């Protein structure tokens, strides 16, 4: 899948290449956060309310004298970590349910789709807030809450893929040769339905990062992990005096999410060439 054709198709989408470049920069920033900004991002590094371009705080400091730039670098870790793990968890729930529904059809399909519909009706952000608040905020509860509210679209997608592949000849052949259901699901159908699932998953990482930032904005972030949403939430009340405390972490979120969305669209063009061509 990762051959030169793939890269050529990906690179044809200029936005996707730009997105990938931004994304790599953010990953590097996250990876080297403790080298670039040694010391705890929660610790006072300079005088409070330093404007940007001050001597010891490039992007300024917050109301407790913490370095904004350091917070952004360390926050990148939390955002990426939560984005990736919660997407993985959502994939596990969504693809499993979708695969079972699409493969078995009938009553199983009905039951699973009713369940999916229920979760699509529930206001997902409210549910995430309720779950994190009740089970106390921590990286684990945040990841699980995001996964629980974001799996339904993945389930629908996996179901549609499995439903259409189920009747294809190679699957019928596998059934006749007596392969077990789990082998057919995992070895025959799943590999062939990966493309659209990968595209949705890449877009879901972006949504998960937005969700995490919204939770920590409300004060429901992990109290030990510096995060962008927390920085904006904490600086909200002093925005009149100190715009930089809310502006820079916000820009970090916009850049990251935008980069992920652009990469997702590029993946879509590269993995679903037929679709991309018909779109024009």
């Amino acid at each position, binding site marked *: 899948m990762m051959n030169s054709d793939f890269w050529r198709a990906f690179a044809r989408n200029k936005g996707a290449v730009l997105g990938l470049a931004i994304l790599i920069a953010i990953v590097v920033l996250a990876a080297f956060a403790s080298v670039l900004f040694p010391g705890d991002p929660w610790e006072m590094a300079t005088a409070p309310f330093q404007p940007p371009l001050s001597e010891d705080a490039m992007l300024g400091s917050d109301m407790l004298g913490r370095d904004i730039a350091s917070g952004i670098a360390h926050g990148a870790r939390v955002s990426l970590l939560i984005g990736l793990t919660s997407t993985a968890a959502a994939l596990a729930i969504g693809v499993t349910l979708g695969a079972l529904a699409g493969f078995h059809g009938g009553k199983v399909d009905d039951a699973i789709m009713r369940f999916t519909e229920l979760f699509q009706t529930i*206001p997902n*952000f*409210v549910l995430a807030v309720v779950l994190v608040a*009740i089970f106390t905020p921590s990286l684990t509860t945040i990841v699980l809450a995001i996964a629980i509210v974001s799996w339904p679209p993945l389930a629908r997608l996996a179901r549609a893929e499995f439903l259409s592949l189920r009747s294809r000849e190679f699957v019928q052949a596998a059934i006749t040769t007596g392969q077990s259901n789990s082998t057919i699901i995992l070895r025959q159908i799943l590999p062939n339905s990966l493309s659209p699932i990968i595209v949705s998953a890449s877009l879901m990482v972006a949504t998960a990062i937005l969700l995490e930032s919204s939770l920590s904005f409300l004060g429901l972030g992990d109290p030990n992990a510096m995060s962008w949403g927390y920085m904006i939430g904490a600086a909200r009340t002093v925005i009149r005096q100190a715009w930089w405390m809310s502006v820079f972490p916000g820009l970090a*979120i916009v850049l990251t*999410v935008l980069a992920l969305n652009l990469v997702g669209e590029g993946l879509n063009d590269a993995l679903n060439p037929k679709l991309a061509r018909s779109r024009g």
Partner: protein
Amino acid sequence: MLGFAQLFASRLVKAAAILIAIVVMNFFLVHAAPGDPATVMAGEAGAADEKFVTQLREQFGLDRPLYEQLGTYIGKVVQGDLGFSYRQQRPVWDILAERLPATLVLTLTAFILALAAGVALGTLAAVTVGTWADSAITVVALLAYATPIYWIGLMLSLLFSIQLGWLPAFGYETIGAGYTGLAHVADVAVHLILPVITLALFYMAGYARLTRASMLEVRSLDFVKTAKAKGLTQGRIVTRHVLRNAILPVITVAGIQAGQLVGGSILIETVFAWPGIGRLAFEAVLQRDYQVLLGIFLVTSVMVILFNILTDILYGLVDPRIQVSQ
């Protein structure tokens, strides 16, 4: 109108089923809240001695089997009893009812604005496909998709209230102004502008992209060619034939996203100190007032179901095929 009535009735049945499932889920969440509910209640009331806890347990039937408690709970919810907030020393429903109108005004206005402006912009993009207007709309949509709504809200209030001083930064009305009648409505409307725009922006972007894609798809269909062959004007083809069909998937998605819109109001109301359910949710989170939080979960779920019914009605009104079967 038979087709429409049938569709509507089946949707109502489905809505009722979903509502029951949500109530059951809410019940289990109440039980999942940290500690035994009686201890939590006692803690919230500020007294935690053993006797009081036992008394509470009996009073609320917490010593009964779970299924029996579920039955009691459903019975209470049906009567509008959503529990009691010991933090605020008031029934949860009273607290919610007080805040509900502000949230309804905010979310309904934002929903209508997002749908109307999104469809208008998407149509414009589809009609001008390939030109600068199309690209501009696409770029704005992409940016709006990537920006956290609470941050858009903060930036808009930084610009329009703090820098320019054009619009109020927070609140529902000018405190102490004592406006009445039309002046009061105008005052609330001015306070509504920033929160509504912020909440609507994200969804507007989505609907614009969807409308554009859908219109480009529909306009190459046979019936549009027929309309052209009949010699209809471009404007009539776009509005009566293309848009009317292209808008259907947009309405479907709008219905599905209604839940997110209602959820987003938590963030918007927090940013703009809008005195609705969302702001209440933020306060309840700060105070760890689980009873109120779960009440909000239930009420917002009902709101989503109502929004879905609203979009179903809208769908029925717009769908040309349902009109034909009258």
